[in-house]
């Protein structure tokens, strides 16, 4: 892709991450941005990569930090913290 790719926090997963990233970057530009995306096509690469990082997140103790953060600012809310609107979302709701 003409650019160096970022590494994984767990060096053991970097190779799997690069495979997933190249698939994703192509899908994003060629399908998603053109409104032609029907489903995420990189599922196979994703599963391998995900398995790898989950193991290392446990080992490095990142998981419990993530659990708290996910409760505080759920993925389903687009990462907006519960009951504590950030400045931008406060501005947005005013504009609405």
């Amino acid at each position, binding site marked *: *892709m003409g650019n160096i790719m970022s590494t994984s926090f767990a060096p053991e997963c970097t190779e799997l991450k690069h495979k997933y*990233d190249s698939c994703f*970057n192509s899908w*994003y530009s060629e399908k998603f941005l053109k409104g032609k995306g029907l489903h995420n096509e990189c599922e196979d690469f994703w599963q391998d990569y995900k398995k790898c990082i989950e193991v290392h997140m446990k080992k490095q103790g990142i998981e419990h930090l993530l659990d708290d953060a996910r409760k505080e600012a759920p993925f389903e809310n687009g*990462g907006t913290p519960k009951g504590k609107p950030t*400045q931008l979302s406060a501005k947005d709701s005013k504009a609405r």
Partner: protein
Amino acid sequence: MKFFKSEQTFDYPWEQVSAANWQKYPNKISTHVKSVDVLRREFDPVRQTLTSERLIGCAQNIPRWLSFLTGGINKSYVREVSVVDLKNRKLTMKSCNLTWGSVLKVWETVTYSPDPKNPLCSTKFEQDAEIQASLHCQIGDKIEQWSVDRFGQNAKGKVGFDSVLEKLDPVWNEKFNDLSGKTSKLFDQMNSRTTSVLKELNDRADSVIKELNDRKECALQDVNGRGQSAVSQLRDSILHKN
């Protein structure tokens, strides 16, 4: 609590910036970012949105006065949730630090949207941060201020992202130019066509005006000639009558 706000403009279309955003790191300026991982990603084909959760690993230089709180560890993690809304051409990223959460919380919101002044060619970046230290004393203030200053320094991040955009630009134009490349080519074509049409119109108008002028001249001469003969005829008839 302290706030930080900044705004920037990138001279690339929103689509291109949003694609390069996934490849923003590593870059030569933001060397504190050591790793980027995708933890969860969901695509909604109906709403045309893509939500991603990422884990960003950083290594910042922690000042000595702060290291007693962080245990001398300079490695930290940030969790980011981003939403790409294709229909509204907006990318929103919300992030918060996972490490040192008991000392300091930094909530950051970044948005990328088409620049209203030039929506097809440039993208507006807006950054908002809310910084809160848990210690309500002098050291808390000092930590918050240090964090605000870090944001100011990280504003150099634009230079870093620009270098990535520049590097990826040929790839984008070659492979994915359906969106932006074709549009600009179309504009170029339209411009050159408009120019040639205008030139032709000008040329035609010139010759029409010239012809009109010529005809007017002839007509005037004719009118003059006829007028003169009419006058002389009238004069003759009057003279004759008398």
